[in-house]
């Protein structure tokens, strides 16, 4: 009902004129802004009309004839076109909104801000956007863009036999996902890789976490001497870059000259073990190595927590007649677990995607006959070999999507419980 009290109708006229950006601003007598908007709009279409036209067409058809059309390039252009279009739409909505608001001010008889004030306004409100934009643009091109690309790829038939420029790639809907679950060879491989990924994640992470905590508590005992040296040595595996250690271990476990078979097992009179050629032994070796690599981090964290537990708690417990074990169970363990819980979960997600150790140790091998994944491939290393060696791009993309869904699901569940998510300014 407030609407009726205005004598004039500037806001509606301005908004309507703004269907061509700039005209509304000109109508509002903001000449500089209006001209700037008009020029921006013109420039937008001038620069991007080809891209928009080609890109959107390409995105829908993925090309119609070879060798003129390269499906993958068309898809990239298409995504670019969509991103550009989204920016354009954002600007357009801002323009409509701006014309309407300024019109409203005129309707209410308020003084309009001068060019100088507008400039200050722009600097004040625009400052966060301005300083964020470099990082944001980079993020869009190297992180968001690839993700969109992979999502789209999962719905195509891009592989060795449908490879541009000789052949066109087509949209195939959910076929890749159905194949993964319905074609026997894919299904068996997928589930064997998935189950090993899960076992690997749980066993390796649990080992490294428990060893790290156990050693931290052990060293933290009051009457242990030489704590500084012990702690430094226990941190060493973390200090050496992981890729170096993994390659060194690959040498140590080597069946012909490695130290494990020749020096250690030989010393005890045990026959050489086929570490690299039998999946079972490779798995055992991998879990052992990851424990070696991963426990120092947990050790350092736990040591930090232990040192912050006030001594009075233990003294009070002693007065009450608690045994050492009771003190450990009721004071130490809960405090340590509580303080390290969020980081423990990230350890699991880290190992879930721990490409380096699987690939550098034995290339995901040993090879399994009849399967296109090696005996110790986890999802991420399988994706790598599907992409880089067997050119199964669309299948790899579909698996990447499934993997990301798992990771996001777990991580969201975790973040729901952490403090940064419950901050009031996020709500």
């Amino acid at each position, binding site marked *: 009902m407030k609407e009726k009290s205005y004598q004039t109708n500037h806001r509606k006229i301005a908004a309507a004129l703004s269907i061509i950006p700039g005209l509304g601003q000109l109508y509002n007598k903001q000449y500089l802004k209006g001209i700037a908007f008009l020029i921006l709009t013109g420039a937008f279409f001038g620069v991007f009309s080809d891209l928009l036209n080609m890109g959107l067409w390409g995105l829908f058809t993925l090309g119609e004839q070879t060798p003129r059309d390269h499906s993958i390039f068309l898809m990239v252009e298409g995504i670019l076109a969509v991103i550009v279009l989204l920016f354009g739409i954002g600007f357009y909505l801002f323009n409509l909104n701006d014309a309407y608001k300024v019109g409203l001010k005129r309707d209410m008889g308020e003084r309009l801000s001068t060019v100088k004030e507008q400039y200050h306004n722009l600097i004040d409100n625009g400052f966060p956007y301005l*300083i964020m934009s470099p990082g944001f643009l980079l993020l869009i091109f190297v992180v*968001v863009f690839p993700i969109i690309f992979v999502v789209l790829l999962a719905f195509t038939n891009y592989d060795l036999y449908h490879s541009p420029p000789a052949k066109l790639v087509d949209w195939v809907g959910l076929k890749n996902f159905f194949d993964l679950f319905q074609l026997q060879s894919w299904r068996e491989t997928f589930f064997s890789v998935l189950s090993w990924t899960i076992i690997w994640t749980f066993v390796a992470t649990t080992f490294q976490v428990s060893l790290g905590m156990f050693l931290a508590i052990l060293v933290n005992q009051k009457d242990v001497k030489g704590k500084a040296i012990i702690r430094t040595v226990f941190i060493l595996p973390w200090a050496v870059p992981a890729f170096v*250690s993994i390659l060194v271990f690959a040498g*140590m476990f080597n069946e012909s000259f490695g130290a494990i078979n020749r020096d250690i097992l030989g010393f005890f009179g045990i026959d050489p073990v086929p570490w690299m050629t039998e999946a079972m032994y490779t798995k055992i070796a991998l879990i052992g190595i990851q424990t070696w690599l991963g426990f120092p981090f947990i050790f350092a964290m736990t040591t930090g927590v232990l040192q912050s537990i006030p001594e009075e708690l233990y003294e009070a417990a002693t007065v009450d007649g608690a045994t050492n074990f009771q003190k450990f169970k009721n004071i130490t363990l809960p405090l340590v677990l509580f303080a390290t819980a969020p980081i423990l979960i990230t350890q699991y997600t880290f190992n879930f995607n721990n490409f380096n150790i699987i690939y550098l140790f034995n290339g995901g091998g040993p090879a399994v006959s009849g399967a296109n994944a090696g005996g110790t491939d986890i999802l991420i290393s399988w994706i*790598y070999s599907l992409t880089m060696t067997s050119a199964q791009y669309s299948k790899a993309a579909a698996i*990447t999507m499934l993997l990301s869904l798992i990771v996001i699901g777990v991580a969201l569940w975790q973040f729901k419980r952490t403090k940064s998510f419950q901050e009031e300014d996020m709500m």
Partner: protein
Amino acid sequence: MGIKRQKYIRLTLTYLVILAMFAIIIYPLLWIVGSSFNPGQSLSGSSIIPKNATLAHYQELFDTSRSNYLYWYWNSLKVSVLTMVFTVILVSLTAYSFSRYRFIGRKNSLMTFLILQMIPNFAALIAIFILALLTGLLDTHLGLILVYVGGAIPMNTWLMKGYLDTIPKELDESAKMDGAGHLRIFFQIVMPLATPIIAVVALFAFIAPFGDFILARILLRTEEKYTLAVGLYDMVAKQFGAEFTTFAAGAVLIAVPIAILFLSFQKYFVSGLTAGGTKG
């Protein structure tokens, strides 16, 4: 008597465990150091304390006509340092605006960052490869650095935003009263107070590209442009065993300086991870 005996057993067991761990930790490290001094290219007949130790493998690595090792070392340092510099600049700016300004789209952007940091950026490796191919950034260090920096933004922004939130806003408000501009507040008030978290972000941004294998493997094609991780892997994978002692020397030359650097900065790592809390 009973208590004393119990304590004796407990301490003995403790030291036994610690000694066993010492052996497990130090043995591989000693083994690789020993291998690097072994004469000959293969390890057959070698021992952990070589009889006629030689520096030949180190000399070979430092001779650029026989090995690309020095190039790799330089590339790794270059890529890591540049990634670190760009990451710190971009992350400071984004984290600062998230922490200090309330603008349209802020909440959604924060959510997006949260989700993006969960997906490792190499998951989209096909796309990164094709994109690099199309833009001509394949086989360049620039392309690699851009991917590293972009991938480091979401997680580190959250880490730094969490820290900046703890710096009282009254400080910048009073500076504003005194007439300080946006940039002045950023550079002279907030950033000096945020040095600890900047150090943490810088360390992360340095270590991550240094240890990365997969992205460098996909993007770098010529041997002179390899980083250490790719180069060493190549050395080992090409003819395993045949060049192992040279590889060992290369591994020692990486492990020693990095380990020293790491041990001296170690306390920052731990405090940074616990303080950040969101990701780690």
